[in-house]
């Protein structure tokens, strides 16, 4: 049953267990306000606040707290990914 498979993403098959898939649901809910923000060089970055692990403590970071400093903001696919 649980064969070794290429690592991929989990996703619902589209129906309740033991029943055929139902019609696909529409794109989920990202509010219009969130959608509108577009990144452009020369324009302000979208502000955010996020939970953080910082030098042994659980804290929270807000981008606007870093005004006055240079910021390198890096996204990555996941902890323990390889590169």
């Amino acid at each position, binding site marked *: 049953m649980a064969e070794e498979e290429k690592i991929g993403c989990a996703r619902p098959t589209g129906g309740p267990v033991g029943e055929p898939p139902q019609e696909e649901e529409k794109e989920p809910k990202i509010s219009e306000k969130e959608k509108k923000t577009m990144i452009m060089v020369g324009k302000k970055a979208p502000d955010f606040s*996020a939970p*953080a692990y910082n030098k042994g403590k659980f804290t929270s970071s807000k981008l*606007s707290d870093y005004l006055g400093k*240079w910021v*390198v*903001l*890096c996204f990555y696919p*996941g902890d323990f990914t390889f590169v």
Partner: protein
Amino acid sequence: MSVDSVFVHKMWNDNELSKMVKGGVPFPMLSDAGGKVGTVYGIYDQDAGVETRGRFLIDPDGIVQGFEVLTPPVGRNVGETLRQVQAFQLVRNSKGSEAAPSGWKPGKMTLKPGPELVGKVWEVWKTEMAFD
């Protein structure tokens, strides 16, 4: 920043990254469950449910000066990121009177854009300077 929780961040830092970097990660490891921030920055892959390798340089006024986005299997060049920060800092400190030409790095010549330089870049800047 990734979609992982701060608990996983702690595990990754304490069990692996701290073995690569003495003292562990020196900056906040941010958690973006659901990819909401990543979506606003345009780098969240909704199908995969993870964030791609987006990197944004934000200046002291909160203005995005540059960004780069890679798909997951290729890592970044941190030296290039630092070079870009140094170049933008130089331009900012000169209040825009200097510009960093292709291949610039600290110690190399800058250009002073203005009417006298139009059509004369070839005299002061050589193509070899685009490379190390």
